[in-house]
C-alpha cells in the first residue's frame, strides 16, 4: 500500500488512533483509557446517555410528525365532510356523480347495490371515501 501524501500528518495520526479505538482488544482499550486518566465507567455512562438522548429526541420528533400527520388527515376529512350535502336525496345524487367520476378514472367501484337503500350516515362514509380517492388522484 502506498502512503497518502496529500493526507496531512495530523489526519494520519487521527486515523491511527481511531483504528485503535475501534479495533483494539477490550483489555488493551481499557488500559489505553486508564493510561489517559479517564474513568471507563464514566466514559461508558456518558456515551450511553448521549445515545439515549438522541434516541429520545428522535422519538419525540417522530411522534410530533405523526401527530401533525394525524391532525392534517383529520382536518382534511373534516373539510371533505363539509362538502357533503345534508339532504338524503342530494347525498344520493352526489354519490352517483362521484361513483361515475371514480369509474371514469379507472377505479372499480362496487358498492352501488349495497348502498341502494342505505342510511344517510352510511352514504356519508362512502361519499367521504370517494372524495378522498378522487382527491388523491388529483394530487398524484
Amino acid at each position, binding site marked *: *500500500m*502506498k*502512503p*497518502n501524501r496529500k493526507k*496531512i*500528518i*495530523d489526519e*494520519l*495520526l*487521527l486515523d*491511527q*488512533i*481511531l*483504528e*485503535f*479505538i*475501534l*479495533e*483494539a*482488544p*477490550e483489555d*488493551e*482499550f481499557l*488500559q*489505553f*483509557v486508564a*493510561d*489517559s486518566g*479517564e474513568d*471507563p465507567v464514566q*466514559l*461508558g*455512562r*456518558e*456515551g*450511553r*446517555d*448521549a*445515545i439515549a*438522548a*438522541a*434516541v429520545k*429526541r*428522535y422519538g419525540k*420528533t417522530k411522534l410530533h410528525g405523526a401527530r401533525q400527520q394525524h391532525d392534517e388527515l383529520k382536518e382534511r376529512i373534516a373539510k371533505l365532510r363539509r362538502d357533503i350535502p345534508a339532504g338524503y336525496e342530494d347525498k344520493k345524487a352526489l354519490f352517483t356523480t362521484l361513483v361515475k367520476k371514480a369509474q371514469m378514472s379507472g377505479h372499480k367501484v362496487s358498492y352501488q347495490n349495497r348502498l341502494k337503500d342505505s342510511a344517510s350516515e352510511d352514504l356519508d362514509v362512502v361519499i367521504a371515501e370517494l372524495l378522498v380517492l378522487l382527491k388523491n388522484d388529483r394530487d398524484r
Partner: protein
Amino acid sequence: METNGESQDDSKEPVASLAEVQDAIQALSDPDHRRLMKAARLFFPFHPALSELYEPKDLLSKTTLAALSGERKWPKSRVDIAKFLVEAMRSIAWNDARKLKDGTQPRFVSEQDLQVADEEGGRPSNPLEVLAEKVPSVEDEMLEKEHQAIGQANLALLRAQLADDADVIKILDLYLKGFSKRDIRRRLGMTEGQFWSTDRRLNRRVEQILKSLQDNET
C-alpha cells in the same frame, strides 16, 4: 419518509434502512458506548474551537440523531455501526469547525469579546467592519502551508518522544507508509498481544501530543 427495506444513497451504495439503523443503535453495548465516547473526545484536540459549540457527548448525540433521521446514511455492507458513527462524528466535527472558521456557524460571543481594539489598542472599532474583512486566498495558502509545517513539527516531536521505544517507532513508520495494522503486525512478526500492546503505547503518546497542542492553543 421512513423505509423498512434496504435503500441506496446517491452513490448507489446499499445503505441501511432507518429501522435497521435504529435497531443497530439500540443494540450497541457498553463497550461500544465507551469506544464511541472516547472517539468523540478525541476530535476536540483536532478542532479546539468546537468547545465553543458543544461538548463531546453532544457531538455523539448529534451524530446519532443524524443517523436515526437518515441525514447520515449507514453503508452497512462496508462498515459496522460503530465505525460508521465514528466516521460520521469526524465529518460533523470537521464541518462544524469549518463553519466556525468561515463564520457561518453561530457561536456564543460575549459583548466584551465584540469590543475589538484598533491597532494602537485604542478605542474599539465596529465589529461588523472586522467581520467584513475577508482573508485573501494567498493568506489561505500560507495558512495551509503553515498547517502542514505544524503537522511535520508534530511528527518530529512525536518521533523524538518515541526514540526510546524501537517497536513503537517501527509501527509508526509503517503506518505512515500506508500499511494497515494487520500488515504491520505481519511485517514485524508480532503476536496479536504484542502488537496491540505496542500500538496502545504509540497511541497514548500521540494522544498526549494532541492534548498538549490543544492546551497550547487555548
